[in-house]
């Protein structure tokens, strides 16, 4: 698979079909990180294995702008796993990325691994091993069973008594330092000015207190309703180890349940939160 990716990257760069290939590399201290390859001679840097869990689609909105006024938007090739491809589909649906400015190097995903070699939890409940969209596919679909996500982690929280849930979340969110890494790593968080950072403190001020932090995280998650593809990027970058994806996954679970089984990034349909009723909804909470 690595050789396929390198050969493809070399070809694309040599032809001048893309300006840059975004993939993964191993840094000098042995950590896997995003790699931006501009020269055909540098494609040997690229790797792919179970440590490549970052969602590189995050970088596309930033690159989908002309560098200077009047210049053309450069074309970028990007390595995408099945989960990342769903994020990309959301961005395409929302016109944040031009399809002809992205070359999608899809990878047949064996699943990602934790530091200790065990499979990442999100990969044990994944039902896609091949991306839903790509320009070229690298690797053979692996023989890993695909599993339908039962949202057991979310159910565990749901089963707690109300006060314990509040205590749990207050305890977790209290550690937040408002570094905004979750937002920055999220492929579908792309507002140019985040409402948590408005100069006039319209919604939240600058303070590092529980109300501000709770507001930020609830609203950030809510803005991802029907758009979050559960790629786990937010949680994976949190320097305080807050289980942020539990919030997003709760919303994803409810969206699917209430809005006709909708899953973000699996179709050209935008999030149902912005569309009209179709009659397939099962919305029960109106009194």
């Amino acid at each position, binding site marked *: 698979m690595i050789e396929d990716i390198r050969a493809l990257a070399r070809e694309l760069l040599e032809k001048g079909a893309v300006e*840059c290939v975004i993939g993964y590399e191993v*840094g*000098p*201290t042995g*950590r*896997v*990180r*995003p*790699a*931006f390859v501009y020269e055909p001679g540098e494609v040997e840097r690229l790797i792919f294995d179970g*440590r490549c*869990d*970052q969602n590189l689609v*995050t*970088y596309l909105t*930033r690159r989908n702008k002309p560098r200077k006024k009047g210049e053309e938007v450069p074309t970028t090739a990007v390595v995408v796993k099945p989960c990342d491809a769903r994020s990309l589909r959301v961005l395409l649906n929302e016109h944040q990325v031009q399809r002809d400015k992205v070359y999608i190097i899809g990878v047949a995903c064996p699943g*990602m*691994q*934790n*530091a200790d070699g*065990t*499979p*990442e*939890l*999100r*990969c*044990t409940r994944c039902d896609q091993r091949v991306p839903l969209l790509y320009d070229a596919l690298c690797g053979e679909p692996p023989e890993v069973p695909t599993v339908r996500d039962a949202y057991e*982690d979310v159910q565990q929280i749901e089963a707690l008594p109300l006060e314990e849930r509040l205590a749990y979340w207050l305890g*977790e969110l209290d*550690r937040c*330092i*408002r*570094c*905004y*890494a979750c*937002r*920055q*790593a999220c492929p579908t968080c792309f507002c*140019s*000015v985040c409402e948590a*950072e408005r*100069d006039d*403190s319209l919604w939240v*001020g*600058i*303070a*590092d*207190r529980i109300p501000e932090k709770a507001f930020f995280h609830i609203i950030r998650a809510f803005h991802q309703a029907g758009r979050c593809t559960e790629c*786990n990027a937010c*949680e*994976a*970058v*949190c*320097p*305080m*180890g807050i*289980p942020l994806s539990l919030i997003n996954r709760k919303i994803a679970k409810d969206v699917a349940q209430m809005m006709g089984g909708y899953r973000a990034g699996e179709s050209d349909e935008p999030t149902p939160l912005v569309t009209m009723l179709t009659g397939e909804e099962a919305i029960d909470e109106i009194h």
Partner: protein
Amino acid sequence: MKFIEIRALHEWLDRLAQEMTLIAPTAVGPQEKAPGSRNPAAQGQQVFYRQVEGAAQIAWDFTRTALSAREHFMPKTETLFTIETGPDGKAVLHETKLEQPRVFFGIRPCDARGLRVLDAVMLGQEPADVYYAQRRENTTLVGLACPQMWEDCFCNSVGGAPDAADDVDILLIQVEGGFAVQVVTEKGERLATGMGLQEVEGLELPQPKLNEQFALPTQQQWLASFNDVYWQRVGDRCLSCRICSYVCPTCRCFDVRDETVVTPQGERIVRRVRAWDSCQGVNYRVQAGGANPRANLEQRLRNRFYCKYYYVPIDYAADGCVGCGRCVTACPVNIDIREVLQDLARREPA
């Protein structure tokens, strides 16, 4: 050499916690490892410097804390003053009161050295910042030497050492059965009187294991590299988050705003607050009218490195980085300041 047994130390700490505010490293967060994440921050409890009620809450076996000591001298958020309406209808400002005396136990030498940098910025030039000054004055630092340099640490490359006593009032070094104690300052001496220290002859101090030292770029190399495409290439993978700034012991940028809150009792309180900010934020440098001289991500990333190694030394005559390695460990996309320093240091001076 002075010495204290572990039990005596614990008893002293328990007494201290009763008499004044005791800040010490303590484990926070869920015990169990987050199920399924490569995130180093989600592998069980993290250690923070927090107020503790006694020795039992102190984490003794830790590498470095998740956040630096800075949060206790420049809090993430503090109220500068409240604004009230006096009986004549005119505004009255109430400044935040003095804090109680504190003992900061277990501060790592690099974090203490970080305070030297903050001192240079906040106190070194008139007018001094009174909020920082009062916390600094009221706090006695009891350092805990690192038995070794940890993964990603590089204090020895920037002039520090895992057992440096330069910036603490008292330094403890773990030895068989207890701690060797170096009382460094007068402030430390005052505190040490209650410790019950023993005098032990011929106490041998362990030599901490060091990480490989590397050379820093020269001023000329920094100057010559400013407009290099190198910053774009490092900036390519930067997420423009604020982790590096917020875990840093020497970053000090802040934002100031007024806010109005209503207490549950319905009372309106107007106050001016100051909170951490970071030069990595998109809007950090936006001016009235919308001009932004640091609109590009690589310009912001570059600013952080130059601030540490070029601007702070010139502006405040202090070394801006203490080599604690927190930003290295915490960066989600492996932007490694050691790598940047070594890349620049390898360049031919222009």
